[in-house]
């Protein structure tokens, strides 16, 4: 299969055409040799995006999402690579589950799916899981995401042991003893609407602990979904000292505040929770100055029966794969806060580097992973057009720029907008 993409703006070069032969980018060839010639009408081609933090729910919670539906959603969002968190049922804490996930992903064939292994057995925070064996089976990182690695003693052992295998450790930072049944951020909104809140201090305390341990042990640590001003400040300071800390944030932390919870919208409920404007601004500053390495979605599909309930008992999390790029482009690039280059760094090169998966190339010989976006025309984000099983998005009806037009993974079309 030979494909030509013509009449496009190729990111990072002045090329207007791309040639794909089989699964790789190739040297130019004549149009009459091509099986398909796609005229992109001046649209922008980016390297396929990478999301290092998603929940595909399989095995165990297929009613929320499967690896196939999650992969379709990823492709719809312009992603060609995702890393899936291990809080499935059974937990992905052994090589057999890792292999099963890879097999399902291969069958779906819509996205490169990189499993993340549990840092501790059963994500219970007690014993180190079989990190070496899981690495052989294909994991790219370990995490207990959903749960923090609660005790410093266990985190120490995980950091040390994972470093033997050069596996990054991703930690969900929330000090749970400060979270007594909380369902949102603690502040004026939680006081007003009578919902128990968790303080930003809960996140800050664990980020501080993680940085201290990584610095002491001289190991890598990656902080998941940073949402606080204090977290950004501590990571910035740690990086300046040379600590091997990296971090991520999510689109909802730079587009929304806890005011989104004011009418008990369960699609504004997640952990860590939406914070106040002061923190939202600090996240944007961290994205701008390089403190924050990546934008991830924390894509967390839930069934409507788990969301259309009372706020305090609703499940945490929102879907994000299909809105992430457009939110980043609209709220960070269109506004002049960062360049498109920086957004691609945040959503492709940096996560690829942290996971060491070698994604992002658009040169001859590289895997043909790419996404084409319409950066010129506004579109209305419509939750009913999402390919994920989840409908739990707070962005339904938002006017955005950066609609996905085409996604190609390994030379194969994985999403194409029907015109």
């Amino acid at each position, binding site marked *: 299969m030979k494909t030509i993409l013509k009449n496009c703006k190729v990111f990072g070069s002045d090329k207007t055409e791309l040639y794909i032969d089989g699964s790789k980018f190739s040297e130019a060839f004549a149009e009459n040799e091509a099986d398909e010639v796609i005229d992109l009408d001046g649209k922008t081609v980016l390297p396929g995006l990478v999301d290092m933090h998603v929940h595909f729910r399989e095995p165990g919670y297929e009613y929320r999402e499967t690896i196939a539906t999650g992969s379709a959603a990823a492709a719809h969002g312009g992603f060609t690579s995702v890393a899936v968190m291990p809080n499935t049922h059974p937990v992905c804490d052994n090589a057999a589950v890792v292999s099963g996930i890879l097999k399902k992903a291969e069958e779906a064939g819509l996205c490169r799916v990189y499993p993340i292994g549990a840092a501790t057995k059963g994500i219970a925070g007690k014993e180190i899981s079989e990190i070496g064996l899981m690495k052989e089976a294909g994991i790219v990182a370990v995490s207990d995401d959903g749960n923090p690695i609660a005790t410093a003693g266990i985190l120490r052992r995980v950091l040390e042991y994972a470093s033997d295998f050069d596996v990054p450790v991703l930690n969900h930072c929330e000090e749970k003893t400060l979270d007594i049944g909380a369902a949102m951020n603690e502040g004026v909104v939680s006081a*007003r609407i009578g919902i128990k809140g968790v303080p930003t201090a809960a996140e800050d305390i664990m980020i501080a602990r993680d940085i201290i341990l990584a610095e002491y042990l001289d190991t890598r640590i990656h902080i998941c979904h940073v949402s606080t001003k204090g977290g950004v400040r501590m990571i910035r300071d740690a990086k300046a000292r040379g600590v091997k800390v990296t971090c991520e944030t999510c689109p909802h932390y730079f587009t929304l505040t806890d005011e989104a919870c004011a009418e008990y919208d369960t699609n504004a409920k997640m952990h860590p929770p939406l914070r106040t404007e002061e923190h939202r601004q600090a996240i944007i500053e961290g994205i701008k100055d390089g403190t924050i390495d990546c934008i991830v979605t924390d894509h967390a599909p839930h069934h409507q029966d788990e969301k259309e309930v009372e706020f*305090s008992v609703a499940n945490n999390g929102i879907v994000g794969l299909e809105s992430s790029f457009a939110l980043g482009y609209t709220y960070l690039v269109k506004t002049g806060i960062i360049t498109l280059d920086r957004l691609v760094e945040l959503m492709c090169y940096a996560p690829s580097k942290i996971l060491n998966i070698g994604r992002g190339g658009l040169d001859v010989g590289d895997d043909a992973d790419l996404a084409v976006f319409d950066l010129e025309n506004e579109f209305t984000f419509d939750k009913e057009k999402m390919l994920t099983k989840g409908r739990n998005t707070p962005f339904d009806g938002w006017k955005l720029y950066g609609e996905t037009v085409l996604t190609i993974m390994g030379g194969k079309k994985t999403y194409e907008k029907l015109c």
Partner: protein
Amino acid sequence: MGLKNKDFLGMTYLTADEIMEILDTAKTMKMVISSGNKKTSHLQGKSVVTLFYENSTRTRLSFELASKYMGSASANISASGSSVAKGESLLDTVRTIDMMGTDIIIMRHPQSGAPHSICKKVKASIVNAGDGMNEHPTQALLDMLTMYERFDTFEGKKIAICGDIYHSRVVRSNVIGLTKLGAKVSVYGPRTMMPIGIDQMGCTIADSVADCVKDADAVMGLRVQLERQQSALFPSVAEYARFYSITPEMLALAKPDAFLMHPGPCNHGVELPTAVYDCDQSVINEQVTNGVAVRMAVLYLLMARRNNL
């Protein structure tokens, strides 16, 4: 005449004018209650259902009497004696009640925002009779009616509220309602029971019971909600009573004509000594009567809105 919204979810959604209309209507309703013939026809041919997921004496009974005094067909459902006990969801339960032709569903629920989560999915008007820690609007209105019978205006009046502020939906509704009418609300309780951010709701946080109560026009004690304590927020009842209760000495710091309120039920000897509960300044029993009047007014005005549509 009538209310702006289909549902009656909280003081948050009422304008100052609507609050005053409810209070004025309640004064009229109080005359009905005190008359020999407690009967009006305002809800004749209408149906009102109370759906309570939490225990209640005053609120439930006063809503029930209010609807019966006004001639409605009324029925009651408790979480324990219905399909709720079989695990039926809130939404399914409320839809079921709605489909029986109910005009007004009066609901109490332990989760903040529970009525908000279902109100758009049913035709009946939802009346919030207390949702978690969020609001208890008819309690605030009966408190305000009790004040309104003694004040010409709320403007500039100091209202002191002492106790477990964190867990109290009564406080939230009172702070929102009273500040809309220009009153100054001072709150005090153990720091562990003071929600972060409450000062940005338009009330002031006092430094002590004395500071809170000083020169107040009205003083309100709150029940220590022992059932909502998931972790100990104060060390003992004895210590609470020593430092946080409204003693006669404290009450003496308020204005000479100030009066004492309490939403009930009261833990005697904890938030108030029994002597204070029963003192001349106490209007706690009168609040109960006003509860029926205010609830009649709310049901009347909600039904007036429905009839006008």
